[in-house]
């Protein structure tokens, strides 16, 4: 139900981002989508990858702080106000959105990844909005 997101702490210094992508590439792990939250000192790289467990293992082996977080993937049809419908349902359930980022899944749908204050309630919000989830297998193989 939940998609496992791979998060990595990286310092803002030369070559760290490259080291992450190189490590994943070397181990044949595909990056489906990526988002970077940055501060002046460091960045938080969040990714959906083809094999989250293995991705975490190989990054830790290279000395990175890496972790897996359960996030919710939602398919957003291309019509006006689809995202608004979802956020309205979320706020109705009293949810805070910690972060979110989009990715295209090809075809007609765009998708978003959401981390909210309560993952269980987030599933209800998706249902109430009449939207469908991106199931993990689907996310990893995009």
């Amino acid at each position, binding site marked *: 139900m939940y998609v496992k997101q791979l998060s990595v702490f990286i*310092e803002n210094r030369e070559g760290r981002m490259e080291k992450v992508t190189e490590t994943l590439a070397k181990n044949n792990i595909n990056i489906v989508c990526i988002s970077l*939250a940055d*501060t002046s*000192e*460091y960045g938080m790289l*969040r990714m959906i990858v083809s094999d989250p467990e293995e991705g975490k293992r190989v990054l830790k082996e290279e000395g*990175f*702080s890496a*972790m897996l*977080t359960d996030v919710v993937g939602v398919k957003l049809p291309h019509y006006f106000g689809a995202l608004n419908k979802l956020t309205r349902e979320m706020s109705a359930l009293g949810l805070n959105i910690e972060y979110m980022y989009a990715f295209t899944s090809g075809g007609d749908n765009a998708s978003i990844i959401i981390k909210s204050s309560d993952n269980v309630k987030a599933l209800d919000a998706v249902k109430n909005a009449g939207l469908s989830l991106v199931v993990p297998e689907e996310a990893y193989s995009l």
Partner: protein
Amino acid sequence: MIWNESRECMSRDEMMTMQGKRLAKQVNNVYHNVEFYRKKMQQLGIEPGDITRIEDISKLPYTTKDDLRDNYPFGLLAVPQSQIVRVHASSGTTGKATVVSYTRKDIEVWSECVTRELVMCGLGIDDVIQVAYGYGLFTGGLGLHYGAENLGCTTVPMSTGNTKRLVTMMEDFGATAIACTPSYLLHIGEVIEEMNALDRIKLKVAICGAEPWTETMRLQIEEKLHIHAHDIYGLSEICGPGVAADCIYHKGLHVQEDHYYPEIVSPDTLNPIADGEVGELVFTTLTKEGMPLIRYRTKDLTSIDRTPCECGRTLPRISRFKGRTDDMLIIRGVNVFPSQVEAALLEMGEVTPHYLMIVDRVNNLDTLEVQVEVEERFFSDEVKELENLTKKISAVLQSALQIAVKVKLVEPRSLERSMGKAVRVIDKRKLV
């Protein structure tokens, strides 16, 4: 067990009588055999006959590291060089190395002291000890080695270098003890973890020294590796490791005062300081033949407790070091010791003991940045959480040090691991 009960448990009166006799003999020796001391005593108008009891020590002149450098390399010998069987040297950060020479008997006394301390830490002939201090001019490796062999331990001269091999041998040899710097032990701990070897090793005791570390760090090492960790203190000028160490009660380090007589004095006035109060540690080598030192100023800050210890020893105890007078940083006029940063960080329990202090001067104002590693346990993928952590660490440091501290989170294992003395401070102000 106690290795040398007649000395280690001697009554204070007997000890002081013996120290007095030894001091009188040593002063007579240096007066006649070391020009440096003869001149100093003549300047002060003191003759060997003036020194008869241990209390007379306060009449004698001090010796400093500069005196050792000025007499480089063999100017302070009290015996012909033919009687010297070994030389050690410590690399000075400024100028010449400090060279220390030993006669055969000096090596024996040193080994005896290390042996006493290994027994104090619970070791015996059945133990297998890995000595992971550097072997060479540095006194750590050979000092522990001779003491462990003298006791009868199976002694493995690992030195420093290949940590994976060290852990493999620790497992294969069934090593029960290790001697190294505390920061290297932390690194060894990480490698044990990486190799998932904790359940397979038999390590029970660590004897750590050569750099200051905090009680919190000692406890953390004990918990992480399921061992007893002991603090061993020494300095090459006096002999090397073995001058003092803590027993299983960990209430200060027992000083081998029948050979190395301790005093605590005010670093400013050089007047003696009362027991229990912090001052600079000063040593007189009562029995040393090769290069005896009178009232050598160590620059280490500590206090002394002469009450008997629960372990039965009457040897006085010096408290864990507050720092060295020359490690002390003055940042915006405030005295700061790296050990304060370490203690504050470890008490939070959320960061690793690996940290780096960077002192700089920006627009004529001193700045302190402390880099700490983001540890697995509290790592979060939410920036908000990490910002909170940064704020919390700087608040803790700020209240401990009384100056503003900028905290920077860095990737785990990104701060340099050291096999000898760890680098904890980069003072960029000195480079300008």
